[in-house]
């Protein structure tokens, strides 16, 4: 039977739905992941696969329990993206149960217990990361040196073996894989500098370590650049706005520049901060998570800038060498307040649409 269909305008849509947006973000991480594989081995791929499987299973089961349209929800790719972001944030050869627990926590607790997509207050990946970092500090800080300065290299099979058993197929432990060509156990560049500073060295002295290539950690620089490319792709395709990454990188750079000028021995340079650790990933992929970020243009600038400040503050004076997760979570909490006070002026209205009047 023919039925006259009625619907409310607009009848037009730009045909970019959540699934497509999330997929684009996933694609944008590919250069970074490839760079990571190139320099640090196949571990990250295993983590990504594990995380995505865990996320899909967790989300699917919860959707079934909540009697929602499971297929439609899974197709929004939000769980996949959260899992992917968590997977690229943890050490590549962390035991399999770390990423499984972390992803489960991200999806089940941080996202679904708060009401599912759109209702979570915190960034699921970062909340999961922080939970893991606090619960399993050893596993979560076992970063590998890039192949160029590692004593042992490992194959894809080694990586799988290590993730599931703790040892490579030839019997090396993660601890042994962390040993560099100079015979010492390697850490991340940020870690190295932090430890050196605590031991009374200057930043310049710390950077004389073999893991550094001038200002940047070997391998880490290229990974950061690869992620930067992905991020610029996202801005180009208008998946994200420039506001959050722009203000976040700018504020981090400005504060670190100020500190660097104040005391170059104690505080590392802006470029060091920008290209070591996960500031780039954080700026383009993590802080821009729409659900938990600020929604107004001005608000996004404040939100990003504040994260940048927190990152530098925690890196310099806090207990952790990198700080993206904490900074993002702190600012997630401030989002409602930021949004409230940064409402744009509506057309034809004199002052802000603030409800104080």
């Amino acid at each position, binding site marked *: *039977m023919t039925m006259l269909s009625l*619907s409310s305008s607009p009848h037009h849509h730009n045909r970019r739905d959540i699934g497509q947006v999330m997929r684009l973000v996933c694609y944008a991480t590919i250069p970074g992941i490839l760079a990571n594989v190139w320099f640090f081995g196949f571990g990250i791929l295993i983590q990504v696969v594990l995380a995505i499987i865990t996320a899909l299973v967790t989300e699917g089961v919860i959707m079934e329990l909540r009697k929602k349209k499971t297929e439609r929800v899974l197709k929004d790719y939000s769980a996949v993206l959260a899992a992917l972001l968590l997977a690229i944030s943890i050490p590549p050869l962390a035991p399999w149960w770390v990423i499984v627990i972390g992803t489960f926590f991200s999806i089940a607790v941080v996202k679904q217990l708060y009401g599912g997509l759109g209702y979570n207050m915190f960034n699921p990946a970062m909340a999961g990361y922080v939970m893991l970092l606090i619960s399993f500090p050893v596993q979560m800080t076992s970063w590998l040196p890039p192949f160029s300065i590692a004593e042992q290299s490992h194959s894809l099979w080694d990586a799988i073996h290590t993730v599931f058993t703790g040892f490579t197929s030839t019997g090396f432990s993660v601890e042994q894989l962390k040993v560099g060509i100079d015979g010492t156990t390697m850490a991340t560049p940020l870690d190295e500098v932090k430890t050196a500073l605590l031991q009374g060295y200057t930043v310049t002295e710390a950077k004389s370590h073999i893991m550094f290539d001038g200002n940047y950690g070997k391998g880490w620089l290229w990974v950061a650049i690869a992620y930067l490319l992905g991020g610029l792709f996202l801005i180009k395709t208008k998946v994200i706005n420039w506001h959050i990454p722009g203000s976040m990188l700018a504020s981090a750079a400005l504060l670190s520049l100020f500190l660097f000028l104040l005391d170059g021995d104690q505080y590392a340079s802006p470029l060091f901060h920008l290209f070591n650790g996960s500031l780039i990933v954080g700026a383009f992929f993590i802080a821009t998570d729409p659900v938990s970020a600020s929604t107004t243009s001005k608000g996004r600038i404040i939100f990003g800038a504040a994260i940048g400040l927190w990152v530098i503050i925690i890196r310099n004076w806090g207990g952790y060498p990198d700080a993206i997760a904490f900074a993002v979570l702190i600012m997630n909490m401030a989002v409602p307040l930021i949004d409230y006070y940064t409402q744009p002026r509506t057309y034809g209205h004199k002052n802000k649409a603030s409800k104080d009047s």
Partner: protein
Amino acid sequence: MTLTVFALAAIALLALIFGALLGFAAIRFKVEGDPLVDQIDAILPQTQCGQCGYPGCKPYAEAIANGDDINKCPPGGETTIRELSALMGVEAKPLDAAHGVEDVKKVAFIREDECIGCTKCIQACPVDAILGAAKQMHTILIDECTGCDLCVDPCPVDCIDMVPVEVDSSHWEWKFNKVPVGDIPIRQMS
């Protein structure tokens, strides 16, 4: 000993000061009347239908102020309950079915050729929305009718109907499932 006396004196002094302060505040910030009742009354729909069990909206407002349930007003329905719950700081409950169910808006209509002019409905109408005199046909002032239903029962010849108010396009609430069906059946898309 002196310490105890000192402490007692200090407490007594404090009590005096705060007492005075409270007394001053009571006079200075005195509120005329009972604004709570008025606030509640402003939320109620003023149909004066008495379905809540009170003779009119104001009495029910007073009852709510004295702790009665907020879910006894069918004409106000869910909206009123929600507003009352916000005002009173109590939890919103579903409408108490004992007092009736939420219905579409209606007005009374007198089938005029059957009216015998008994004036009973005129007396029953809480808002004087019926025009007429003894032995004269009565008629409803539609604009004043609150749809309270109170005139229907007293009518000895049952010539009063409650008719639903017809929605015109300017009052349409954008509900496509309530569109009058024309020559082709209609499927609602969103």
